[in-house]
């Protein structure tokens, strides 16, 4: 059963000290799917992503990625992780950053393509600390996908990205998914959520609802995804 899913999060709980950040979350992501993680600040989106790439260990439940139980070092070469804050080396150039992440994944041939995708090829010589916030975000994305991973974890990838580039990003995400890459994308932005094949709504460390955008609309009883989401969130709270 788990073979059909690229990512299998089964009844996972995770606490930080006494604080329960995740409480029995189950979600399954199919191969080649774009899965959107939605939820307010502090819902647990980043925590789920960090569990999926083995940075955190679940206290209860299991996380299986590409058929292997996490944490597992062997799977990591097939994962690309774009952290929420652009995690880059500020003192070296854009290209040097991307080349570094390519090298530690053994995929230096992809550097140029990644730089062109995020439209930083012309700025490849710029030192990262001199870039604008959006450019850093783009550089960070390039670092995450330079080795063409099978599973791409994107923690709010389009924050600070201008609308034109955002459209291009999503085109690219879809192309990757069509080629078989699995993507998990966290977001607060509802029009982005609409572009995902399936959504998981997270609140207070629980999965509120799961399904395609159309499913969520009908579950929430509204044609507007945002309203549907708020309706689902409010129902659970009361």
């Amino acid at each position, binding site marked *: 059963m788990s073979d059909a899913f690229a990512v299998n999060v089964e009844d996972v709980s995770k606490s930080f000290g006494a604080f329960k950040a995740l409480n029995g979350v189950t979600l399954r992501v199919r191969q080649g799917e774009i899965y959107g993680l939605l939820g307010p600040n502090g819902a647990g989106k980043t925590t789920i992503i*960090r569990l999926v*790439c*083995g*940075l*955190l*260990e679940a206290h209860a439940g299991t996380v299986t990625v590409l058929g292997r139980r996490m944490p597992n*070092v062997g799977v*990591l*070469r097939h*994962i690309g*992780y774009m*952290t929420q*804050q*652009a*995690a*880059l*080396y*500020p003192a070296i150039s854009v290209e040097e950053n991307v080349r570094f*992440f390519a090298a*530690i*994944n*053994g995929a230096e041939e992809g550097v140029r393509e990644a730089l062109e995708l995020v439209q930083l090829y012309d700025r490849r010589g710029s030192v990262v600390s001199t870039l604008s916030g959006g450019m850093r975000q783009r550089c960070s994305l390039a*670092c995450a996908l330079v080795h063409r991973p099978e599973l791409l974890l994107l923690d709010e990838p389009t924050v600070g990205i201008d609308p034109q580039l955002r459209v291009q990003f999503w085109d690219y995400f879809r192309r990757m998914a069509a080629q078989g890459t699995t993507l998990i994308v966290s977001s607060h932005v509802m029009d982005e959520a609409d572009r995902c094949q399936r959504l998981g709504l997270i609140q207070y460390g629980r999965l509120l609802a799961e399904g395609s955008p159309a499913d969520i609309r009908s579950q929430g009883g509204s044609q507007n995804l945002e309203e549907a989401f708020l309706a689902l969130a409010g129902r659970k709270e009361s």
Partner: protein
Amino acid sequence: MSGRRVRAITRRLLQGFRRDRRTVALLFVAPIVILGLLGYLMRGSTSAPAVGIANQDSGPLGALVADTLRHSTRISTSDISATDGDAKLRDGSLVAYILFPSNFSQQAQSGSVAPEVHLEGSQPGEDSPVIQALQQSMISLASQVAGRSIRFEPSVKYLYGGASYDTLDYFGAAFVGLIVFFLVFVITIVSFLNERSQGTLERLMASPLRRGEIVLGYMLGFTVLALVQAAEVLVFALAVLRIQNHGNVFLIFGMEALMAIAAVNLGIFLSMFARSEFQAVQFIPLVIVPQVLLSGIIFPVSTEPTALQYVSDVLPLTYAVNGMRDIMVKGADLSWSALQLDAAVVAGFCILLIAAGTTTLRRRLG
């Protein structure tokens, strides 16, 4: 100038400290520890230098002077035979020995005595009490040979160093290594902390990189940097400051490389216990200062109070400094067992710290 705005800054600063218990503790504990250590070191170490006396005088006067020397508070004496002297200097059981030649009494009668003073010589401070004690004992001689003033012309011989050997030579040998150790430690701990705070460490952890690869990569990078620095320091020390060196330059370099590796891994290891650069910098007084005080750089380990000697014995810098001095001052090479021990201990510390750094790397992420 607005009092309210100034107060806002002051308040914000103090608020930060309220949560950072460790900094507060350090602020109040570190000075006491450091000063206390210094006081204990300086007051507690009363041991007078060990001096051997070899009396070959066929007349009575040598024995007389020797007896006066035995009662001197400046030195602690023991009788030795002249043939053992150099060996005892070499193995460190004596700082000096004084030899009264067979014609010492005749010399006194003719108005000029020349006892031989053999000094180990690698610690500049230890010569003077020996010479002073000897000079004082000459007063008893003068009363025996009435009516004549006796000139005191000791012939001083150095096993190491020499007359031109000075404090800088002594400290220089230690500092050449210490500078590299210290700076590499600071650079490593801060850049590893950056790796943590800018989020790139998290990225590395989510990549196929093994922990050992991260530690090794860091080690190589900073060791290369440290070696270039070590070369510069060495050239400056030898060519510009003209610090005496009797050893092989490549051996010095090798010792510095070992110290650099130890420093890098100490930095990585300790960065696990710091949440900010601020906390990282606090390791300097905690880690570096006691090592500087206790590793024999300033106060020879043998003159420390016994309790502190145990501490000195487990500090990597003690062995590194001793090794550097053996090479530069005494001209030691790898056939010396003392140098083999020092190098082996420093290398052992490196391995220990590499292991410690690698195993603690995962912590603090979960």
